[in-house]
């Protein structure tokens, strides 16, 4: 099914926050907001929950650290023990630096890959830019016209206060992402 969208663009970060909050309060369904930079406070206005990526980061970091610590003990003490200067084979304090590095590697690279995955960012993805100045200087609020009672002129009136610059109606592609 193709959805009907309402695309409204604004010229300032304060306006987009205000308009988003007003739309949310008026009960409209916000598809997304497209902005040229991370506008602080917009996530609250949209009612988004904080990202759960920190948990993924923690999990991957612990995985990397435990795996690398085990690997060092296994290679040094089990697989092929070599006596180096009479030091204990399983000298855990000496294994700390590499364990730390691998923890950072897993947590850092893994979190970024997880971020790409959940945000569906991948090479070759069509950007689906509703308004090409959203990556330059315009802030775009997209509402879903979910029922017959959706009144465009009412929305227009609501956004007037926030210096709305342009309001358009669009149809989505077959699969909205």
């Amino acid at each position, binding site marked *: 099914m193709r959805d009907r969208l309402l695309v409204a663009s604004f*010229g*300032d970060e*304060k306006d987009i926050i205000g308009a988003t909050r007003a739309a949310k309060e008026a009960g409209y369904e916000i598809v*997304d*907001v*497209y*902005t*040229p*930079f*991370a*506008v*602080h406070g917009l*996530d609250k206005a*949209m009612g*988004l929950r*904080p*990202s759960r*990526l*920190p948990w993924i980061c923690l999990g991957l*970091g612990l995985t990397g650290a435990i795996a690398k610590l085990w*690997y*060092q003990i296994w*290679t*040094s003490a089990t*697989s*092929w023990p*070599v006596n*180096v200067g009479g*030091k204990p084979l399983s*000298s855990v304090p*000496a*294994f700390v*630096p*590499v364990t*730390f*590095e*691998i923890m*950072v*590697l897993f947590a*850092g*690279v893994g*979190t*970024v890959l997880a*971020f*790409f995955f959940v*945000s569906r*960012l*991948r*090479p*070759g993805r*069509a*950007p*689906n*830019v*509703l308004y090409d*100045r*959203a*990556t*330059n*200087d315009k802030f775009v609020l997209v509402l879903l016209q979910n029922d017959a009672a959706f009144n465009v002129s009412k929305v227009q009136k609501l956004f007037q206060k926030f210096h709305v610059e342009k309001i358009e109606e669009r149809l989505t592609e077959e699969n909205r992402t």
Partner: protein
Amino acid sequence: MADSYSILRKPLILGNKSYEDVTRDVCYPLEQKPSKAWWITFLVAMAMMGVGIVAVTYQVETGIGTWGLNNTVGWAFDITNFVFWIGIGHAGTLISAILFLFRQRWRTSVNRSAEAMTIFAVICAGIFPIIHMGRPWLAFWVLPYPNFRGPLWVNFRSPLVWDMFAISVYFTISLVFWYVGLIPDLATIRDRTTSKVKRAITGFFSLGWNGSNRTWLRYETVYLLLAGLATPLVVSVHTIVSWDFATSIIPGWHATIFPPYFVAGAIFSGFAMVLTLMLIVRKVLHFEDYITLHHIESMCKVIIATAGMVGLAYMTEFFVAAYSGNEYERFAFVNRALGPYAWAYWIMAGCNVLVPQLLWWKNIRRNPTLVFFIVILINVGMWFERFVIITISLTRDYLPASWASYAPTSIEIAALVGSFGLFFTLFLLFARFLPMISIGEVKGVLSYGHKKEGGHS
């Protein structure tokens, strides 16, 4: 809008820019044919790199005997260059990660180029240990990989193995951090460019970024996490580099002060290099409104602070040598300041401790020409610091019978010249093809320093 400036906070970006202005100004150098100055510097950098390639090829073909090393002085020019370049890289991470965590919002104008500098400096650094192996095609031996010799593993108790892991992870995380920061800006270029090729390339690398706020929210989270990870990482990297020396028993190397001393020195030298590059960039690319005198001043203050730390470390080393009662340790330091390489020691002390004191004066901090000369001297001084620590300590060890002196050969000097050539070649290519200033982040600080009701007009 000039009248709406806040009295408490000065704006970070001058010139009353709109969002559109920022996009245009930062993309401008990418959309023009390169200037004559760019071509000249690029060709000079390429020529320097060529000198290095010839020298290293000759050295790899002939052997490490082409260097001035001997049985006593087994590490000298190459390891000096390695530590020097790694140190340069640290300022990039400090600006991008540590200043981010401290909410120092002025970093937005310089973090992109500083991170690029980090990556290029780590590339330069990585070359030296590899060519020092003599047979660089066997460099993979430092990795623990399954093999048919036992399997024989690397010695995980060795600081050299730690170092290999630290540098590789540091490079990877710096690259990832830099790339994540670039994605929104690549999307801006994609939506703006008229060239089909450029659109295809930036479209590929921007991964379909469209500025969705759901993505921005996660992006900010990831950025914070990466900053939090990179902060201890950068400290760990130079700490581990210092352990290459501190865990040995050479007088002058075997010191517990090394980790903080090296980290402070790394940040010190890195900021000097960031300033060297930024002062050129702002002039050549006309970014004076973005990299303002305030930015230069802030970086100068970091330099004063770290110069103080480095100076304190120099004095502490002497104090500990005197106080320890260890005659070898005492001799090593007397030899450092008064021995045959005293000139190198005093270049180091002069450039790193005395010269930065000039930056206490505000008029000097706000004078880009003077700052440029000062940071060049600091770059020189910090190169000599590594030379002093590494080489002078080795020339005089416990047995007078094994004392030796060291002088670099033309091949070693050519390799150093080549590394500078590589660094500047990469940096100039970066300046030509990628936005030097983070467009997205700068737009986020445009309202900084303006009164709330001022707004953009």
